[in-house]
């Protein structure tokens, strides 16, 4: 049975969403009173990891759940406040561009990892 790491999908989703958020920040860099957003990713991953690590199994609906039961959600958060009244928005273009290229590389690395994982199954199927 092909089983890819759930983290991989989550990370790909988060990176794709982050790309959109950063693109939106750049598009709105000159919009007055615009506050930049970002994606919380490290927290989400930690949350997912903890969920994987220890979850109480419930055999009866009346049991008290323990361990993280909720699906990890990728959150978009609005960041910071306006730096000063003179600034149009709190978007720092240099930061956004750097974050964007970092995010794109991160996404490509994830894609490569996923491809490698799938290639393993392909090899097994070939049986050679």
């Amino acid at each position: 049975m092909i089983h890819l790491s759930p983290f991989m999908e989550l990370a790909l989703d988060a990176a794709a969403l982050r790309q959109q958020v950063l693109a939106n920040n750049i598009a709105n860099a000159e919009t007055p009173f615009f506050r930049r957003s970002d994606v919380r990713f490290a927290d989400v991953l930690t949350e997912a990891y903890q969920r994987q690590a220890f979850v109480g199994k419930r055999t009866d609906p009346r049991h008290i759940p323990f361990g993280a039961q909720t699906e990890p959600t990728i959150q978009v958060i609005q960041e910071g406040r306006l730096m000063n009244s003179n600034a149009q928005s709190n978007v720092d273009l240099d930061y956004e561009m750097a974050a964007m290229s970092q995010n794109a590389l991160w996404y490509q690395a994830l894609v490569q990892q996923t491809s490698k994982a799938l290639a393993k199954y392909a090899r097994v199927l070939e049986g050679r």
Partner: protein
Amino acid sequence: MHMFDGLAISASGLTAQRFRMDVISSNIANANTTRSEYVDGQWLPYRRKMVRFEPMPGGFASALQKAMGRGAPGKGVVAKAIVGDPTPFQQVYMPEHPDANEEGFVLLPNVDILKEQVDLLTATRMYEANVTAFQATKAMLTKALEIGRG
């Protein structure tokens, strides 16, 4: 979340910045225009125009996401309105000018060429930033097609 939203967001930035460049060009072209509006039997010069940007409204889906505490990436930017610059017109002494008043003063537009040049540069750079963002998103989508290709 739609797959091509990232491209649409960057495209909205491109549209907005291009629109802004049009307005700046209009300001520069009309830097000496003395007859723009006819008010109370008197010609008024061209008034400098500015673009007002607003984040594009996200609609129901993004409002729902926000209410659920998840947040949404936003939909891009939109040039909502063109507003006139309320600063006073320049008064220049040119008695030979056809639009000079009795004292020989002419009202010229409140366009400052230097300011327009700076705005034009900013708009160009913002346009380039959006192009870069667009290309980065496109590279990611292309890469996503490689999943499972081995």
